[in-house]
């Protein structure tokens, strides 16, 4: 065995490639401190660690208080704390580095994946249960009022007119269930439209009570028509305005914008980093401890890959369904196209609720991942927790 080589509790261990003998000169190491690894039994350097004089080289300024404060938690996280004795073992230190790196990456990945996943799936449920039906309800109301206006000119009152007014009123009530429209501002707009529809129906009925061809009949019908069609303040203008806002809400819910691209890119990078760290740690353990596999780390790797594949698949399916829905609702619909669009929207967005609910499993999976990384390395780390007798 090479003198000064990092020794381990097991004879002969630590001879793998990439392991630097007596490494103690890495950045961040300070003389005279145990370096997060108390000299213990099994560490050949424990009793021979020389003490360096606590003298700063000339011309070097001591780090400021703020810098020291900042450095402490950073060092704690990376394990780059006080270095081991100059000629001591680095195994414990390297284990600690990997241990903390795996935990940190797992935590970051879990958070990043959760937020990225939520960014797509959190909108799927409101889109399915609220926004898309609201757009179709407004389409229905507009179509019904158009039909009602055609019936309003009939020489005698017709039941078709009443039916269309009822359809319009019911459609507005359905649209009011939408989260966006249901807010105070949207609700007020809908109530105004509902009030106007009532007034419109009354004026049409007043016109129909007058003799056919009379001036009063024409007058009442003109008042009704202005209530329905007046520019900017008529019923149709208001419904179209609401519809425009609602379509914008659908657009917002279904778009995969720059923020989501950034979040998913960060998730991909963190996944690569964690995957690489898991493999490197596996390799490190294999060389250092002569164990072919660390089963817990393998389980963590499988969990990582499996979880990622599932979440990506779920996200692609949901996003595709949302994009199809947006394309379908992006134009005004009328007549029989409206119920047909309702059926197609329901099929596009089927199972999105289940997939959205899977978000909580990301957090659970993240905790499991960290638990596997922790237990996978803990045994080896604990091997170094010995004090000299």
């Amino acid at each position, binding site marked *: 065995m090479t003198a000064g080589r990092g*020794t*381990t*509790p*097991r*004879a002969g261990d630590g001879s793998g490639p990439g392991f630097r003998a007596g490494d103690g000169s890495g950045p961040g190491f300070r003389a005279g401190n145990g370096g997060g690894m108390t000299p*213990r*039994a*099994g*560490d*050949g350097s*424990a*009793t021979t660690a020389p003490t360096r004089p606590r003298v700063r080289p000339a011309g070097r300024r001591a780090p400021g208080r703020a810098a020291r404060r900042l450095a402490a938690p950073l060092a704690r996280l990376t394990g780059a704390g006080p270095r081991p004795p100059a000629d001591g073992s680095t195994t414990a230190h390297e284990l600690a580095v990997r241990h903390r790196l795996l*935990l940190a990456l797992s*935590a970051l990945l*879990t*958070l990043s994946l*959760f*937020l990225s996943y939520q960014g797509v799936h*959190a909108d799927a449920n409101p889109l399915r249960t609220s926004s898309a039906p609201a757009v179709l309800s407004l389409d229905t109301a507009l179509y019904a009022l158009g039909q009602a206006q055609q019936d309003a000119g009939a020489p005698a009152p017709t039941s078709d007119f009443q039916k269309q007014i009822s359809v319009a009123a019911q459609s507005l009530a359905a649209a009011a269930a939408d989260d966006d429209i249901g*807010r*105070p*501002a949207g609700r*007020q*707009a809908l*109530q*105004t439209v*509902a*009030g*106007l529809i*009532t*007034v419109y129906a009354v*004026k049409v009925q007043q016109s129909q009570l007058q003799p056919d061809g*009379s*001036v*009063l009949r*024409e*007058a009442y019908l*003109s*008042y009704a028509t*202005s*209530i329905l069609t*007046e*520019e*900017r*303040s008529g019923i149709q203008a208001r419904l179209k305005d609401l519809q425009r806002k609602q379509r914008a809400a659908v657009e917002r819910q279904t778009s995969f914008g720059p923020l989501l691209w950034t979040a998913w890119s960060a998730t991909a990078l963190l996944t690569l980093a964690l995957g690489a760290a898991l493999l490197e740690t596996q390799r490190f353990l294999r060389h250092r401890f002569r164990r072919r596999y660390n089963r817990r780390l393998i389980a963590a790797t499988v969990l990582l890959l499996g979880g990622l594949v599932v979440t990506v698949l779920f996200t692609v399916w949901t996003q595709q369904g949302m994009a199809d829905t947006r394309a379908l609702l992006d134009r005004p619909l009328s007549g029989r196209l409206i119920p047909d669009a309702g059926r197609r929207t329901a099929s596009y967005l089927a199972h999105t609720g289940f997939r959205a609910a899977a978000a909580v499993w990301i*957090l659970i999976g*993240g*905790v499991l991942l*960290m*638990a596997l990384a*922790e*237990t996978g390395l*803990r045994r080896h780390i*604990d*091997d170094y*927790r*010995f*004090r*000299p*007798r």
Partner: protein
Amino acid sequence: MSAYPGGPATAAPGPSSRPGRRLVRTVTVVASCLAVLAAALVAGVRALEEEPTVTLLANWTGDDETNFREAVIAPFERKYHINVDYQGSNAESQVLGADVEAGTPPDVVVLTGPGELAQYARQKQLLPLEGLVDSADFGASWATRLADGHVYWFPLKADLKSIVWYPADVGERQRERAVRRPAAWCVGMGSGATSGWPGTDWIEDILLQRYGAGVYQRWARGELSWRSKQVKAAWTAWGGLVGAGGDPGLVRRALKTPYESASLPVARSPRGCTLEHQASFIRKRPVWQHADGRYESSAQLIFGAAGARAWEVSGDLVALLHATPEAKKLIRHLASAGTQRAWSEKESGFSVHADVRPDPGDAASAWHRSLALTLRDKRAVHCFDASDAMPPAVRDAFAEATIEFLAHPRHLEALLRSLDTLSRSRGLTWLPSVCDRSP
């Protein structure tokens, strides 16, 4: 070399439960942190999307709505970072009624009718404005104190009625001749849900100018019968002026034309009409701007009096239905002299705020200054639009009756009888006073 060959075998391990406890602790802490962080991030993003909102219902649409948004709402939103959801509709009364019945009224409402507001106040739907608005800023006739001692509304905008508009190039002789020609009057009765109100303005003004504020006030308070000779005479006089039941083309035009388009024939050549009996706000219409519209008091032009005996006025009155912090801020903003001045400068109406006095040197046009001074003239009697002061049911029936009367003046007796019956209904709220000085 290891100082202790055999490593772990010779080592003295720590207590066996420590690693387990540490693991549990670490996992618990990390999981909790993750959950809290994720929840905080999601909640934070959602909270950022929310913006405090106040809902406002009024009757301004079209250009008036644009002016209102620019002069009043936009500065408020910029200053307080509160979103104002404005709904403007001429069916405001019906919309508000439905909202109140449904239990979801807007936070703030601007209504033209003090009669309707008094009814809501009686139903405890309105909130007193003491502490938010100094009623002394508007005078007792505008910010009326009700029987319970509270003030529930104040005017955001006021307008002068009892005036007749004509193009600048129409001389006095031509005007006098035009008065007796129904075709010379620009009449538009259409106003969507509130169609017919221009006719009520005519009848109210004729009654006021012919019989004075005393009779007018008794009628507006429900104390004078609709079938009284004064009221009946006012209806008949109006019918004669605008040709009720006469030329079918003229009647059709008057009934079907929206009030804001009534003056369009002024711009035609030859002119389709010359005179318009309408409130001061109509001067903002492009036709009257282009014709450099001038005004004359209806008392002088129609009845040949030396001057108006009294002026009919109208106002858009602000009331509070939900005392949210945002709504209170909006009320204070609307009652402030700065906001009232900004609104007045748009010439969509006038402010009667004590601190917004017309300045002879300001840039406002002569007609605007003159009307503003008349509105504030302490020697003149100002009476609120009677139909606006009446209970909403009577007001709406009155407007409907003017439409029918214009087409069928012979139905007058039946129409007035119906209005009398309606006015005697129980449960109606009549205002105790509609004029600013006791006649």
